[in-house]
């Protein structure tokens, strides 16, 4: 499958600071790739290099088989910056007409349906809009020309939960239509529904790449057992699926990475009087993965 985005040893360095460090990345056509990392980890710098806003100090990148500096390539790309800024006097409608008019395949019916879908008043100057409404303008601008490749920097930042859901629906539709999506985020749950693969970037380095299924398997379950009298953590040490045990008064908190049957059997033998379960959410996994990489 041909690559929609490909970087080879892509590096951006300012003085001693390596914002992006030898990034090798391949995003295939039709794929949704989530680029996750903490604030300042190099996500936006990568996006800015892909679109030729800033030039790499090493390595190279390609979009849709060409250079991000080529206007013919950029005509096929929809971009949402982390913070959309437009000229002061420009209204949403002005922006749609102007930026849409620069591209060869502007379709006003697509644009109008997106305006309706996101419930935007396009007659107001963009500078007067709230953060969320400015985000809507940016999303409509990114999607309205049905681009082959979407580069979305923190796309749901500032959107309320209902609009976040609407955005994820839209993303799934475009993905089903064959568009390639590359999005950055620091919230893993936000990309869970649509991403095929996830790349974790930390301090400019791509530290881990995995499919979403692989990511889910990293999830651990926590079980808390309550006892009438304190029970030592060593009581569960020989149970194979127990990764860790901590004591909290008369409670024992167990982290599991396997079947729960043996754990429940041991808890019954110890006369547990209460049980609570909790599965780590994706954000916790994200933090665990990054913590692990930072320690290694």
């Amino acid at each position, binding site marked *: 499958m041909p690559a929609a985005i490909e970087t080879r040893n892509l590096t951006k360095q300012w003085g001693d600071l390596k914002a992006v460090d030898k990034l090798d990345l391949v995003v295939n056509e039709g794929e949704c790739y989530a680029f996750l990392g903490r604030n300042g980890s190099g996500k*936006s710098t990568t996006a*800015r290099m892909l*679109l*030729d*806003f*800033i*030039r790499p100090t090493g390595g190279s990148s390609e979009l849709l088989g060409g250079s991000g*500096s080529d*206007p*013919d390539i*950029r*005509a096929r*790309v929809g*971009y949402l*910056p982390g*913070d*959309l*800024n*437009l*000229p*002061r*006097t*420009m209204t949403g409608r002005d922006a749609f007409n*102007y*930026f849409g*008019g*620069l*591209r*060869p395949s502007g379709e006003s019916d697509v644009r109008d349906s997106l305006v309706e879908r996101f419930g935007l008043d396009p007659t107001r100057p963009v500078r007067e809009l709230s953060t969320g409404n400015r985000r809507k303008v940016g999303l409509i601008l990114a999607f309205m020309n049905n681009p082959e490749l979407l580069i979305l920097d923190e796309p749901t930042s500032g959107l309320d939960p209902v609009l976040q859901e609407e955005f994820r629906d839209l993303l799934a539709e475009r993905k089903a239509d064959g568009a390639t999506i590359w999005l950055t985020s620091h919230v893993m749950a936000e990309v869970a529904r649509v991403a095929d693969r996830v790349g974790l970037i930390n301090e400019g380095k791509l530290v881990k790449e995995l499919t979403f299924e692989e990511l889910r398997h990293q999830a651990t379950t926590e079980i808390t057992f309550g006892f009438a009298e304190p029970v030592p953590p060593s009581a569960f040490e020989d149970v194979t699926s127990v990764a860790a045990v901590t004591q909290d008064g008369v409670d024992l908190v167990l982290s599991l990475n396997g079947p729960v049957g043996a754990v429940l059997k041991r808890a019954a033998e110890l006369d547990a009087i209460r049980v609570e379960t909790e599965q780590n959410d994706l954000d916790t996994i994200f933090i665990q993965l990054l913590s692990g990489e930072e320690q290694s």
Partner: protein
Amino acid sequence: MSATLSVYRRWIRDRRLSTVSWTLGIVVIIVATAAFYPSLGSTTASIADGSDSGEAMSSLLGLSSGIDPSTPLGYLWISLYANIVPWTLMALGVALGTAAIASDEDTGALEYLLSGPVTRTQVAFARFAAAVSVLLLVSFLSGLSMVLSLPFFDLTESVTTTAPDGSSTTAPGATVGDIATGTFSSFAVALGLTGIAFLIGAATGRKGITLGGASAVGIGGYVLYTLSSMTSSLDFLTWLSPWRWYVDDVMLINGLTWDVTLPFITATLCLLIGWQAFLHRDLQSS
């Protein structure tokens, strides 16, 4: 419509309100100053004899060529075209040159434009052309307001003065050609500074640096020129100042000289150097 033309038109459209404001401001100043000619023409003549003003003051007022401020053209030169008109147009030029690239880049708006199918070259040339167009339009309207004001305030009338020895001289009234020449030379001096502002903005992408740098060049050139009137040791530096040719040549009265090409050459060089700098650097993040 080509991308270059779209960028050009949009940039001008985004400046409609400020262009109207600048035009109104300069037109009001011009008409109000012209209106004072019938009553102030003779008063300013007392300054012209130089008895209570030194070289620097004369230079400051644009009197270095021995211009008689009691004549229509002398009055217009000393009260408008030696200072207020070029200064106002230069201020506008700095604002436009800064807005061409640096202002939008500072806010992040330029980055978004360049995410589309538009090249940096198209943006640089379209916006420089748009900045020059706005400057030209405001200059033209300022000149037009002056031309329309002339007959209302006796500025088309010739003036005859009699010297103590009994000899008399007649100075002609201001004509459309005089105003066109004076306005064009003022536009030219402002164009040079527009180019410098464009160059700094294109090279740095920072609004504050551009505004400060271009203003410093404009004011510094003026200070250099007036100081050189007091001490000839600084004279070699005044070739850097557009005021040297602008004030010395007095094109409003003496007609156009080849010196008027200097700011066009400056602006063209600034455009080309700024364009190359803009092509080869990183965009600043907002």
